[in-house]
């Protein structure tokens, strides 16, 4: 199965109710696959007039209770930024797939890039929390899309599946488990019936994630992008803003260990650790094997969640004392390497390409050896 289709199938397995999107290379196959599949399972598919409408529609549908998703690529992703902030502020769970291509602007529409990884974290104005998964295979496109739905629901945040063009267009075997084995997580929901007790759409009894009531259930919620109080009513002062925005950030920051995922290969005794994600991690796996065959103690740390970034894992690696150097290959001119650089005084070798082609294992081996 091709990666884009595996992502679409993952969304179906997660119970996708509503998809709104706009065609864009190299994510279009996600949409085309769902255009054919969703009507057959009784779910809804709408081709929108643009990406701004697409994300607005999936936030609206999710506010009415749908598991909703859209898929796009760089230019469309940029158009979505404002409403990503709205989803974060209203705490409406949505899943956004970004199949990264060489950018900026129209760039190389049909070729690979990995340059949206800071945009996904910081792209909308202001502070807010998100989670972003970076699959490196069609199997992970399937698995991590399901994980993205669960995380979006659990924390009521916009959650992202950051494929790259190579992974999105790669064909590999995908194992689809029995439906009973699929992990499906709902959103926190009100414990009282509508009208039984006053319901506070942003009231907390425990934790940082308030229960969510949907349009039409009788709770008469009000949701706004303005700074608001527990009732959802606008409250325009610094204290209310501080309280709200800190919680939006903290619900991801303080639950990072629960959300984050990473893969490690031979890092325990490694003196050189390669940090790579997406298709570049596939080259890095090969590079580590080649280096080990030459007796070089190399290892790979692959962030499966780009955000939250597995920073505590990097810190623990440093405490082991073996690591002398990090190598960070990525198809951009230096983005995720900053996450490593801020954690260590050790040398961090950046291997960067602007996009259009993969970074080969040989180039990464040179970095490990050099």
């Amino acid at each position, binding site marked *: 199965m091709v990666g884009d289709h595996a992502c679409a199938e993952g969304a179906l397995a997660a119970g996708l109710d509503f998809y709104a999107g706009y065609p864009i290379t190299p994510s279009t196959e996600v949409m085309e696959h769902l255009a054919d599949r969703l009507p057959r399972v009784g779910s809804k598919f709408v081709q929108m007039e643009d990406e701004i409408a697409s994300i607005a529609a999936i936030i*609206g549908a999710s506010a009415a209770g749908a598991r909703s998703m859209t898929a796009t690529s760089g230019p469309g992703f940029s158009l979505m930024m404002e409403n990503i902030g709205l989803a974060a502020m209203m705490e409406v769970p949505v899943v956004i797939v970004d199949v990264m291509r060489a950018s900026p602007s129209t760039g190389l529409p049909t070729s690979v890039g990995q340059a949206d990884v800071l945009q996904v974290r910081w792209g909308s104005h202001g502070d807010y929390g998100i989670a972003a998964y970076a699959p490196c295979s069609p199997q992970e496109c399937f698995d991590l899309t399901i994980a993205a739905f669960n995380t979006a629901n659990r924390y009521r945040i916009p959650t992202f599946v950051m494929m790259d063009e190579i992974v999105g267009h790669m064909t590999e075997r995908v194992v689809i488990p029995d439906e009973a084995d699929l992990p499906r997580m709902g959103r926190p929901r009100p414990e009282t019936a509508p009208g039984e007790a006053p319901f506070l759409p942003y009231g907390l009894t425990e934790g940082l994630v308030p229960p969510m009531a949907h349009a039409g259930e009788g709770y008469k919620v009000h949701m706004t992008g303005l700074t608001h109080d527990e009732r959802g009513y606008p409250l325009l002062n610094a204290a209310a803003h501080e309280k709200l925005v800190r919680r939006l950030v903290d619900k991801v920051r303080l639950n990072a260990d629960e959300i984050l995922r990473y893969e490690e290969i031979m890092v325990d005794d490694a003196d050189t650790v390669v940090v790579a994600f997406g298709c570049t991690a596939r080259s890095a796996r090969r590079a580590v094997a080649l280096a080990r065959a030459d007796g070089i103690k190399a290892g790979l740390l692959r962030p499966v969640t780009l955000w939250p970034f597995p920073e505590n894992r990097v810190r623990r690696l440093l405490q082991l004392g073996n690591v002398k150097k990090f190598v960070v290959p990525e198809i951009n001119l230096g983005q995720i390497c900053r996450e490593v650089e801020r954690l260590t005084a050790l040398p961090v070798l950046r291997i960067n390409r602007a996009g259009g082609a993969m970074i080969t294992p040989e180039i990464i081996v040179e970095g490990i050896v050099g």
Partner: protein
Amino acid sequence: MSVAAVQKEVHVNAHPSDQLMRAERLPHILCPGCGIGSVIHCYVDAVAASGIPVNRHVCVSGIGCSGRAAGYVNVDSYHTTHGRSVPFALGIAVYNPELHVTVISGDGDLTSIGGNHFIHAARRSVSLLVLCINNFNYGMTGGQAGPTTPLSALSSTTPFGCWERPFNLPHLAHAVGASYVARWTVLHVRQLRNSILRGMQKEGFRFIEILSPCPTGFGRPNDIGDGLMEMQNYLRRCEVRNEPHLHDIDIDLTHADSPIIVGDFVDIDRPSFRPIISGPVPETRPAEAWAMVKATQIKEEPNGK
């Protein structure tokens, strides 16, 4: 009479519409003389009269003064981003067709930044009732010109007079596929309430333009006077015509005596957009799709009725 005496005199413990208002949020933020409150009142009156359970009404708005309307009505309500109330509302209405979704937004929000969504939602015949409160300017940001600002009107971004031709919104809405089109002013509260009620009973994309005073942003630079004077203006100039040529009902403020045409302009049957749900048997899909296409064919009648 002192201010305190006036307050004492008008104080009431309850209002018939309280149940449908978030009364604890009052007083509202709107300026004296603004017409948005009248629109909200007409909307909640229509909700009460609609016979549709209150829990099935949803109100969505965008940004700006009119965008605040959703925050005052006691139904599920969403105050979204600038220009995006229509696609947000589409998500709700298409996902759950049981819900009756009304968009209350301003002229700039709906037809400038949100113009593309507006025409496409109407083209698709999305099941939405859209109330466009047209006060001829961007009020929240302090009185700038927008796509409905009449020729020659003064605003903070047209200090020499507006020289862009404004939208004729009923004509636009009809052209792009609305099943119901009306225009009233906030002076016409009974007609407006009935129009909203009619809109709630219909399928497809229903559009009502509501002319509203904005003494702060539009009235002052254009010497219209306060909200009351603008209402008197409506009383003097408005002419009810239910079958006008829609291309001919531009609002002209340069000629003080030219009529402002209001009325119920278009009322045709057009089924609401529904995504195809084919069920598990793919072979039936093309036939069902064709049946849907046939169902959405409308009987064209020039200018509606």
